[in-house]
């Protein structure tokens, strides 16, 4: 396998990490909805916390995407694109 193919396969493998972030974001919103339906009057006060948890979780998925994009589009010395 030449190194250019390895680069593309690596980008694909890096993107798998986004699936984990997807699971995490789903858990956050699912649990928020569960809590919000049990006590709807308190739910709007937790909007900030909800978005903070979402942002921090999403960041990890975005890091995977970043690695994939770096592998795809940033020239690596010694490998022709």
């Amino acid at each position, binding site marked *: 396998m030449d190194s250019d193919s390895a680069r593309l396969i690596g980008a694909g493998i890096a993107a798998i990490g986004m699936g984990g972030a997807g699971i995490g974001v789903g858990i956050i919103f699912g649990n928020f909805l569960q809590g919000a339906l049990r006590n709807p009057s308190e739910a709007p006060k937790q909007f*900030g916390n909800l*978005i*903070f948890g979402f*942002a921090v979780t*999403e*960041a990890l998925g*975005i890091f995977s995407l970043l690695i994939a994009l770096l592998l795809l589009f940033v020239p690596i010395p010694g490998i022709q694109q």
Partner: protein
Amino acid sequence: MSNDPVHQFHINTIAPFEIAGLDASFTNASLFMAAGVGAAALFMTSAMRPAAMAPGRTQVVAETAYNFIHGMVRDAAGEEGVKRFFPFVFTLFLFIFAANMIGMFPYFFTPTSQIIITATMALMVFFTVIVVGFAKNGLKFFKLFFPSGIPWALYIIVTPIEILSFFSRPLSHAVRLWANVLAGHLVLKVFAGFVPMMAAAGAIGIAGSILPLTMTVALYALEFLVAFLQAYVFALLTCIYLNDALHPGH
């Protein structure tokens, strides 16, 4: 390929000039950033011009935006945070929101899809946190890396993690906004490209091209949500980081 999805992110020089050998040309990115700032400033000043006791429609929108961010800063950074940083956070929010919204028009450039722009704002926040943190707390600012209320031995593990997370903040702060806007606009263009691709396949294709068209409309609505949400997230995280500068060690 006729509809290159990356073409929308190309930076074109409009008025070239240099400052001391550095390329400081007026580009389409600068144009749309200036348009965003202009639109936000014009809207806020003209909406608040009447300053009526019983506000009109535009004044209600302006006051709602103000109260929304004001409440967010107060919840995340306390009254002292409001006193010191509210104008900064509100400006950041309005700029990002206006830039995202301007990018939603077809054929318009999205300034926040360039990492240099989001990274500049994220580094601005990062250095504000460091400068304010040391100016206000002195060496007590290092308590940020030693959270209170845990057994002494755990500092061996916790402190490196805290230091690492502190220095990865500007990275995640910048990349989050950039990658969300970039990926959203790319997906939009790719789905829109499916419409002519299917329509080229004859009568059945034209009937079938309704599907990607509907999907594009739905994604467009989602992008409006993302445009607001990412501006809000950026402002919220700015508040949380600034809170660390004011009250380290919590």
